[in-house]
């Protein structure tokens, strides 16, 4: 192992040092990136006051975040979102963590604490050519902090109103000099939704769902520099806890406690001989276990047993090689194989485990024929277990106007294969042994969604002003959009689906074509000693074709989404920050509904103490200071404002 204590004094001038800052480790300069990328850095994470990962996505131009009481929060980009938004690929250190069942991300169950995140890199659009099938509306890569950059131990405790708490710890250590490790964990409880009494019809006031989430997370991360060029990494995370759900006084949806457990394992080996020459092998494993059952006694004597019991897992092995051929040519090649298995008897009407294996070949070539001109051509060929062969190509051209500004044109095709639910579901509901209805049902054949995307971007840094700009206009043309259309059996176009006649079913099927056009800009201004302002604004418009089965989804695209994060340095090591998040009226699809135009304002005041850079701080955070607000469904969900204090100590 490397690093046996201090180096010999003379050797330090000539000995190898591990090639640490490789192209894959560093965030790509926006001037060179073939796609629009937003980086949420540690400073933004801290200043936002958010304690959950999904909330941080509010800082990304065009991104929409909502929570509901019956499941995980949901994140969408420019609309098309429902409770199980599955068009954004989400990764932890490059390993996909979308749930294989729906294809969505169970944000509350990610085995990772916000405090262990170094930064979040977000591709604000389709990028199937780099990330494969399902990188359809965006890619979120959550990058964890390397244990090599921490030492000692830390504690954080957040306590707020309505029984909210979030206590966390971290311990860092070294083994054999070359192995750095971190063990961290947290225990959290939050009342996301108190039961809400909808009194819109005074004769029949409706109680709505509650949700209280308790989660324990433990995460072990280790890296070993086994030679100057070889690094081995391990990350093992687990999350477990209960979600108290259900509706007070309801016979159909009584109060209950769901139990969720998830684990994530990442083993990686990386050989870097230079900053742009790297061979890496990664193995990722993810599994999720959900247990939640209740009895619907609304129509006694018929008793309906319902559950959300599921066990899913994904194993993914990936090999990648990148190198520079000459000063103007660079390439990357890779291959991967992925196996998914899902067992959810309630959803598939079978006790069997369904399995599928998919494989990928991917590559890209980067060519700079002129100093100012960069051309990036890439693609992924995927053999998907359900959708067959899919090829996602992309061409990007970056032209530097000045050393610190560039325009970008990119065009490509990306796919989204239907998830297990969209392609195989048959959610049969039985009462007293008889089939009463089929709730969700997949059509016999569901084709993958396809989007052709074009964008024109401009990025610039005005160093003297401390300002960075990122502007883009995009046009996307969607085909074979997958939607769950309501039908009464027999359901056109497939006919009798095996359920009793005239019973209602949500049928997953290809539902037509449409186009989306829009623009985004973000400005990041920073002045040392004063603070920082990060502003993002997006506009979008959707235009459905005649073949669309239901134009409901057009309302899911808000015309305008805004976020502002203001960070103000104050004397005496105080710092204040304000987050402003607003979107125009929109509709969350399926389980969701209309949400009026809303603005949310969060405030944070923090004071550091102890050694500079130690991380010791005391803070108070107020979320949604404007009061209670509607989320996800106007008639059903209200978020209460939150105020909490936090204390962080490090040794």
């Amino acid at each position: 192992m490397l690093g046996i204590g201090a180096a010999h004094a003379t050797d330090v001038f000539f000995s190898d040092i591990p090639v640490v800052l490789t192209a894959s480790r560093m965030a790509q300069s926006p001037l060179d990136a073939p796609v629009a990328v937003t980086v949420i850095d540690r400073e933004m994470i801290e200043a936002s006051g958010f304690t959950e990962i999904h909330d941080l996505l509010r800082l990304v131009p065009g991104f929409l975040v909502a929570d509901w009481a019956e499941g995980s929060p949901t994140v969408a980009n420019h609309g098309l979102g429902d409770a199980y938004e599955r068009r954004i690929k989400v990764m932890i250190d490059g390993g996909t963590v979308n749930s294989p069942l729906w294809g969505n991300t169970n944000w509350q169950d990610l085995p990772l604490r916000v405090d262990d995140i170094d930064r979040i890199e977000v591709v604000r659009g389709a990028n199937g050519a780099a990330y494969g099938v399902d990188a359809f509306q965006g890619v979120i890569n959550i990058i964890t902090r390397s244990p090599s950059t921490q030492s000692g131990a830390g504690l954080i405790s957040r306590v707020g109103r309505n029984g909210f708490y979030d206590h966390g710890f971290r311990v860092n250590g070294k083994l054999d000099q070359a192995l750095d490790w971190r063990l961290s964990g947290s225990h959290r409880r939050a009342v996301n939704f108190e039961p809400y009494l909808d009194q819109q019809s005074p004769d029949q006031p409706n109680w709505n769902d509650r949700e209280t989430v308790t989660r324990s997370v433990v995460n072990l991360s280790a890296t070993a520099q086994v030679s100057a060029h070889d690094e081995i990494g391990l990350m093992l995370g687990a999350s477990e806890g209960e979600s108290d759900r259900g509706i007070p006084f309801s016979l159909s949806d009584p109060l209950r406690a769901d139990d969720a457990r998830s684990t994530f394992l990442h083993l990686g080996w990386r050989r870097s001989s230079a900053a742009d020459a790297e061979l890496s092998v990664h193995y990722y494993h993810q599994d999720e276990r959900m247990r939640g059952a209740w009895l619907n006694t609304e129509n006694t004597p018929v008793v309906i047993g319902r559950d959300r019991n599921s066990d899913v897992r994904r194993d993914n092995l990936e090999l990648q090689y990148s190198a520079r051929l000459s000063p103007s040519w660079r390439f990357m090649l890779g291959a991967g194989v992925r196996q998914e298995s899902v067992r959810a008897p309630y959803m598939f009407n079978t006790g069997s485990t369904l399995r599928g294996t998919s494989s990928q070949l991917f590559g890209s070539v980067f060519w700079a024929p002129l100093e100012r001109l960069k051309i990036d051509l890439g693609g992924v060929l995927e053999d998907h277990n359900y959708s067959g062969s899919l090829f996602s190509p992309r061409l990007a051209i970056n032209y530097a106007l000045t050393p610190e500004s560039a325009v970008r044109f990119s065009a490509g095709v990306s796919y989204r294969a239907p998830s297990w639910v969209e392609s195989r579901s048959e959610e049969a509901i039985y009462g007293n042994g008889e089939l009463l209805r089929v709730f969700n049902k997949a059509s016999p054949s569901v084709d993958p969604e396809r989007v052709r995307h074009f964008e024109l971007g401009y990025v610039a840094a005005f160093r003297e002003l401390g300002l960075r700009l990122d502007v883009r206009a995009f046009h996307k043309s969607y085909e074979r959009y997958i939607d769950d259309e309501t039908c009464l059996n027999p359901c056109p176009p497939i006919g009798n689906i095996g359920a009793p006649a005239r019973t209602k079913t949500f049928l997953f099927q290809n539902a037509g074509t449409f186009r989306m056009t829009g623009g985004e800009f973000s400005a990041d201004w920073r002045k040392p000693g004063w603070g920082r302002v990060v502003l993002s604004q997006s506009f979008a418009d959707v235009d459905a074709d005649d073949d669309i089965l239901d134009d409901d989804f057009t309302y899911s695209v808000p015309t305008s989404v805004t976020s502002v994060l203001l960070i103000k340095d104050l004397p005496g090591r105080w710092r204040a920050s304000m987050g402003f998040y607003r979107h125009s009226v929109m509709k969350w699809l399926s389980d969701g509904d209309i949400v009026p135009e809303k603005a949310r304002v969060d405030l944070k005041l923090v004071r550091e103490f102890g050694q500079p850079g130690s991380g010791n701080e005391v803070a108070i955070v107020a979320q949604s200071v404007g009061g209670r607000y509607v989320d996800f469904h106007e008639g059903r969900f209200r978020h209460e404002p939150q105020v909490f204090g936090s204390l962080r100590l490090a040794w």
Partner: protein
Amino acid sequence: MRFVLQRRSYLRACLCGLALLLGFTTSSVAFALDVAVVVSQRDGVHKAFADAFMRAAAGLGHRVFDIGSPAEGLDDVALARADLVVASGEAAAELALARHLRPTLVTMIARSRFEVLRSAYPQAALSAWLLDQPVERQFRLLCAVVPERMRVGLLLGDNIDAEAALHAAAADVGLTLATRQVRSEKELIASLEEVLSASEVLLALPDPMLSSPTAARSILLTSYRYQKPIIAFSRAYVTAGALAAVFITPEQVASDLIDWLRTQDSTRVTLPPPQEPVSFEIAVNRQVARALGISVADDGELLRQTAGGGQP
């Protein structure tokens, strides 16, 4: 990117050649120096130095002997007769000094190690061509690479005694230093974060503890987290992720030494005080510059400014 400040004078070489031909024709060999070369290792940087030095020294007319290495042992007779011993590396110097105290020049050695050697052999005629670049040169490179960054972070290990001199050298070029001493690797991250919080660029000095592969790795990763560039002292550091470095190659050490040897009498040598490198090379990691959003001038301009050519 080779840059030699003291260039070989063609005229001086001609005159030397003429003198050799006319003045010492009776026994030019008799008045040449016996130069014994000892290397710490037979490969790598010591071989590169020895090859370059022996070729050039022989070209000056001296008798140059390769008398061994720690692994092979020494030619004792040749060592005892040598007018000058050139030892490449600390191990080579220790081997030679333990046998005979001949006038010895140690090359390919860090200042801190030479000082240890000096105190172990106080009676020896001993000097060195050091690997440590003058810190003023590192500061000049820093100013050339990131001219707008005036607050420089610096971690000090055993070289804490040099703190006052470092502050003074920084002040001379308009920089201010944020320093912190690290007594053990356990303190590294906390000290580093403190220094990074108070600075715009980190200067890495060749301290043994702070330059071990694991320490360097932590420094590189943490500095990147803070989006602060590192100005370092070796090509390997730049390959690993530092923004830029100024350093000397083994061939340049040989060249510096040859330039000095040319000034010596052909019958005996007078050892100078320990010498800092005259020659230097620079390296820039432009990928890191790109990732950190830093525009760096071209190599020619950086060399000019690092050599003391001032602002453009």
